[in-house]
């Protein structure tokens, strides 16, 4: 299936509202960004004629030419390292790394240069580049194709790390990421690529802000990426059981929106953090720790987290046991000292 077949392509100049998949929204954001700014260039492995293994860059080369969207040799450090040089020379590179595990060869470039060049030069050189990574599991992929590596990036000072959970955020956050003067690690939940939603191209997103995805009064679920639809599903089930569940889409993993998150958890007094990645030393542990610290006086129960296990990602046939699911989150909610309730 190609995105062109979805027939959602819109001219950048005409703000439009349409229902489309997250993949289509990302494709549209890239096309609009290329059109809006002559310095935007998209490159990586298989992003040209093929349109990317997930077809996110579908049609861009045909439409804008090799100068704006092109394939590179197969070398991730090379891709990120040349992007650094292009950014130093005024371009706004948007690179695709094919899967989380295949972003790892570029890790030195990301940590030692992408994250630090702006600081090193006292802002004399900025790094307005975006590294897009199809991220996470839940698609039955074999080893090295389902990892979640947000912790590596979020821990690294100087990097902005975001992950959308809706087509709207996919569009708006990607546009914001490309417009940002700072380097952005843009994590695209593979599992949600084909989930549809409404996209209004005139809506802008502000990096660094969380979004309350559902109101609720008893407990707050804090999630991002593919865990957001899971949290919403949990909220539905819990509602049927009489529990009012609030869902916050953290969205911006770094910087973090303490204001929204703290206010949300204080309002319910209970919280569960959900994420696919192994939980140990993770974004989930960070959220858990800071919520604990900032909401200590308001908590009815310890903040819990439901995450992937601290094991390598499961093979496809065991994936369903590995990933956080509705029951596991409900169990965590159940453990939040409800017996103390009057």
């Amino acid at each position, binding site marked *: 299936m190609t995105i062109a077949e979805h027939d959602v392509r819109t001219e950048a100049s005409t703000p439009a509202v349409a229902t489309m998949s997250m993949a289509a929204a990302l494709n549209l954001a890239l096309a609009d960004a290329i059109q809006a700014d002559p310095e935007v260039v998209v490159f990586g*492995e298989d992003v040209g004629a093929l349109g990317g293994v997930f077809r996110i860059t579908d049609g861009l080369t045909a439409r804008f030419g090799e100068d704006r969207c092109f*394939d*590179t040799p*197969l070398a991730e450090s090379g891709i990120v390292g040349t992007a650094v040089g292009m950014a130093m020379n005024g371009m706004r590179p948007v690179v695709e790394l094919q899967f989380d595990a295949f972003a*790892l060869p570029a890790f030195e470039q990301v940590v030692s240069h992408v994250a630090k060049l702006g600081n090193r030069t006292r802002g004399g050189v900025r790094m307005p580049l975006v590294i897009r990574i199809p991220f996470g599991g839940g698609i039955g*992929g*074999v080893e090295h194709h389902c990892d979640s590596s947000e912790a590596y990036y979020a821990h690294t000072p100087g990097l902005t790390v975001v992950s959308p959970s809706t087509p709207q955020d996919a569009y708006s956050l990607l546009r914001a990421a490309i417009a940002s003067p700072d380097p952005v690690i843009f994590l695209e939940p593979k599992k949600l690529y084909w989930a549809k939603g409404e996209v209004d191209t005139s809506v802008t997103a502000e990096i660094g802000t969380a979004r309350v995805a559902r109101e609720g009064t008893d407990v707050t679920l804090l999630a991002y990426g593919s865990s957001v639809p899971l949290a919403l599903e949990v909220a539905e089930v819990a509602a049927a059981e009489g529990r009012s569940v609030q869902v916050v889409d953290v969205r911006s993993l770094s910087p973090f929106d303490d204001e929204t998150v703290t206010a949300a958890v204080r309002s319910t007094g209970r919280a569960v953090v959900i994420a696919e990645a192994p939980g140990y030393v993770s974004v989930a542990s960070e959220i858990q720790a800071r919520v604990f610290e900032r909401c200590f006086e308001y908590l009815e129960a310890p903040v819990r987290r439901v995450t992937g*296990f601290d094991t390598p990602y499961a*093979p496809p046939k065991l994936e369903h046991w590995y990933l956080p699911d509705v029951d*596991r989150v409900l169990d965590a909610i159940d453990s939040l000292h409800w017996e103390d309730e009057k």
Partner: protein
Amino acid sequence: MQDTDMLPREEAVQLIDQDGAVVADDHYALPDTASLLRAYRGLVEGRRINDQASALVRQGRLAVYPSSHGQEACQIGVALALAETDWLFPTYRDSVAVIARGVSAADALVLLKGDWHSGYDVKTHRVAPQATPLATQLLHAVGFAYAAKQRGEDTVVVALCGDGATSEGDFHEAMNFAAVFHVPVVFFVQNNGFAISVPLSRQTAAPSLAHKAIGYGMPGQRVDGNDVAAVLAVLGEAVERARTGGGPALIEAHTYRMQAHTNADDDTRYRERAEVQAWVARDPLTRLRAHLTASGVLDEALDAEYAAGAETIAQAMRDALNADAELDPEDLFRFVTAARSPQLEEQWQLLRGEIDRTPAETSGGAR
């Protein structure tokens, strides 16, 4: 060795042309008939394995299959060039070589079926797990060969990768370590013209990939990768040189991936059908069949016997893959480290509790 002796020939070595005719070569001898017949049988089986696996993907029994259809001369050549005590470091595309090395098809396909990340005992078969992260396994091969050399064993290691993988930093580091430590490794690059959709012209501007060898101080050679005779001769020479202390070598085999990258790929997006068609004439199987038939060593009966043998393997593949393996979720925690940490035990107990509470009829399958 003179410096320029490390450069590959201008043309790839070919011993049997696409019509089955023998090409005279003043350096490489045509393998003997028994070897060619054995190779032919391997090609027949290899082709059948590729096609059966692709069929199993269509039937939903395999999650994904990167076929080596068209590249069987490389796959079989590699398996036959190695002694039993040698080691192979393959990639995801090298299932046929892995099977030809003695691994059962059922075990070889565990990764692609999705039961586990690798399904065979590497030590029994002397085959490393098939590597997915490109070029990384080349370094493992070098380290493995280093250890063998230190012990005075005469093990040779053959490390496989594709044209695309030569662009990775690890390719460079592996070639360099191998040359500096003069270890018995042969790097065998299957240049099939594409890295998924990206053509060779986007991977390199060099006269050939084999021209990289001199930059490390090892010999490079190019071979017609659809001519199993040439593959056996060139690889055989490099393996023997490595075995007798001559150090590493780089061999580039020119071949072609006749199908899409995997079943998930759509190769009509990036290559012309005419190009694919042109390679049909260079098929590794047909040319060797023509050669052996013309030489009178292969007749229809023998060919049928080989086909039947291949069918037996295909049947075993169907049997193995149509059966659902009994999977144990505790396996997720068993092999992470030698001893299970308290944290992992705690996580297993959480999962175990969930499993115990899951209605029996669904506990084995997807929730």
